[in-house]
């Protein structure tokens, strides 16, 4: 799994303010992720998991702290550069799929490539992008649903479409925010299998936010956030800030062996 430090964050603070009320969500989070790693961020609701993901994914800026990606600081980049980063380097998967309802599944998958193309360049490269989108749709098992609108797809299918969309730009880093949160158990498992597959075969680095420890256990590493902090004190893991192994969670069930056949989603 892990290679060099790919992304790391230091002393991240984030406070949400509404009128006179301030709600600190992150209170000094340090973390890192190595290239090719599949990292889970777990924690209870309101612990700051999604906020952390938004900061790392440059969807939002920290109030205090720094974020580095490939040794370059990204939290202070201009809006344009952050847009570029999200479009070219990062992929996002959300709990509620967040597909555009007016577009077909295939069009939804193509959107990131459309965002980076002008009309004229699309006229030249559109067919290549389309082929890639079709390949990805087939890869996530939706070759037969490409021209359906999101409302005509099941939850699992919508999430697969969202995964295909996240992958179409060849992202180096995939952010998955509760990707199984809105799915039944079996479908959720399939989705995680698919992500694991992407990580292992395509070497996509993944940061997955989840509150489901069972799902998290299938990843390389787990960070637990509690009330805006990484729960495990830094000094216990000098080699990796805030990192805990799944087995170190007291409340986790015993580690299970995941037979290879269960780690491969059908059809991939």
């Amino acid at each position, binding site marked *: 799994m892990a290679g060099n430090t790919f992304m790391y964050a230091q002393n991240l603070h984030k406070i949400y303010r509404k009128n006179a009320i301030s709600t600190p969500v992150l209170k000094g989070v340090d973390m890192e992720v190595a290239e090719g790693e599949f990292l889970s961020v777990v924690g209870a609701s309101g612990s700051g998991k999604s906020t952390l993901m*938004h900061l790392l*994914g440059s*969807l*939002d800026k920290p109030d205090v702290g720094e974020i580095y990606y490939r040794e370059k600081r990204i939290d202070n980049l201009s*809006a*344009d550069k952050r*847009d*570029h*980063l*999200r*479009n*070219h380097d990062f992929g*996002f998967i*959300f709990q509620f799929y*967040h*597909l*555009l*309802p*007016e*577009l077909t599944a295939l*069009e939804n998958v193509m*959107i*990131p490539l*459309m*965002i*980076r*193309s*002008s*009309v004229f*360049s*699309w006229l030249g490269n*559109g067919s290549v992008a389309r082929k890639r989108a079709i390949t990805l749709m087939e890869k996530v098992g939706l070759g037969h649903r490409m021209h359906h609108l999101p409302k005509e797809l099941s939850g699992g299918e919508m999430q697969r479409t969202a995964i295909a*969309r996240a992958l179409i*730009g060849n992202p180096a880093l995939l952010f998955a925010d509760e990707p199984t949160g809105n799915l039944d158990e079996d479908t959720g498992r399939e989705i995680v299998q698919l992500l694991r597959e992407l990580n292992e075969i395509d070497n996509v680095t993944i940061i997955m936010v989840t509150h489901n420890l069972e799902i998290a256990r299938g990843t390389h590493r787990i960070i637990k956030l509690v009330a805006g902090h990484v729960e495990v004190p830094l000094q216990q893991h000098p080699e990796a800030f805030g990192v805990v192994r799944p087995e170190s969670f007291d409340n986790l069930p015993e580690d299970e062996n995941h037979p290879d056949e269960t780690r491969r989603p059908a059809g991939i």
Partner: protein
Amino acid sequence: MYKLLLCWKYLRTRYLAMVCIVSVMLGVATLIVVNSVMGGFSTKLKERLHGLLSDVVLEAYDYDGFTDAPSKMALIRNDPFLSNEVEAMTATLEIFAMLQFNFREVPFTRPVRIIGIEPEGRKAVGGFAEHLVNPKNHENPTFNLDENARERFIIRRASRGIDFPGPREAPNLNEPPPPDPPPSKPHEPQGVILGYAIAHYRDRNAPADLVNKDVRTLEPGDEVVITTVSGAKMSPVFDRFVVSDYFKSEMSEYDSNYVFMPIEHLQKLRTMEDRVTSIQIKLKDYNKAPKVVARLRELFANAPLEVQTWEQKQGAVLAAIRVEKGILNILLFLIIAVAGFGILAIFSMIVVEKTRDIGILKALGASNGGILTIFIGYGFLLGLVGAGLGTIIGLEITVHINDIEKLIANVTGQDIFPRDVYYFDKIPTDINLFSVFLVNLGSIGIAVLFSILPALRASMLHPVRALRYE
């Protein structure tokens, strides 16, 4: 590329936006119809205002006129510049008068304007012969009575027992011989051409299906008496005339006031031989009128003459038409402005509805400018489609406006376009493509303008807040 795709998808799927399209469409259609009809009226009115007036008019300041018109015309003809620009010219003499006639044994008197003309010359200047009702007069306009008119004139006179001498009595040799008998042909007064509305009135009680509702009060061959003033002392003079034809320019002011007669006759009647009140000039190219006017003013700088183009002469009326059209356009454009507020309201709703989608797009790397472009482009598309449909509907209505008017009149029983007001047979329309273009441009501009605010709001949305929007 995604902006284009989303604009197109939003256009096809947001039925709420159809309201915007319909409001722009109605505004554009209304503007095109009103502009075309106003333009039609305006063009027709201009044609008619121009009708009797030549391109350039050289006229005296008062009714006494000026002398020696032939030498003035010769001067113009011999001017190197003017000789190339002037196509035709003729002298006219104009004066107010009273017209008296009997209709159904009731005497009528009405004020008129007498215009003394030389028919051939007036025809050459234009705006006269083609408006004469008797088709024979189109080619060779004349004040002479045609056969039917003469017959009527003779019969009318005979019925009044005048002009036809009775049987001769046996000569009384004790008395001196009587003077020579009057000529056997009755004395025929001078023919005049009356404005159509002087000799006709519209019967408002006529059956609806009657095509010609005009009642004639004076037939060709009927006699009239014209009283005007003569010389500097303004002493009244009058003479008997006979109607030879009608002048129907469809311009109410001319048709109900003007009486034409030969200029020599009018000069004699007013004892002002050799005097005329204006010289009417027709140009080869009206675009050169300002230069011609300047040259004429130079040429007659010392003479008490006014030189004007027909537009300058009718300046007040033409300015009124322009102002009227301008104000109407502004008022009607408010309709589209109202549509603009509709777009603003509906777009704001759509932005709220699309908040999460905006968050998704931003998460996927769409820039603020990109989001702004989507919504402005959407406004542009709504404007474009609305204006396009409005143009088609507006042009269709304009082309078929008379059929539509008939249909509405039949259904409601109300005469929407009373033809006797303007003496128009149908509602005139004039589709000005440039104004259609301007209306389209304005409407699309308003649609874009009113979509800027919601588009800005959309573009400024924070991606995380937008993604979390419920």
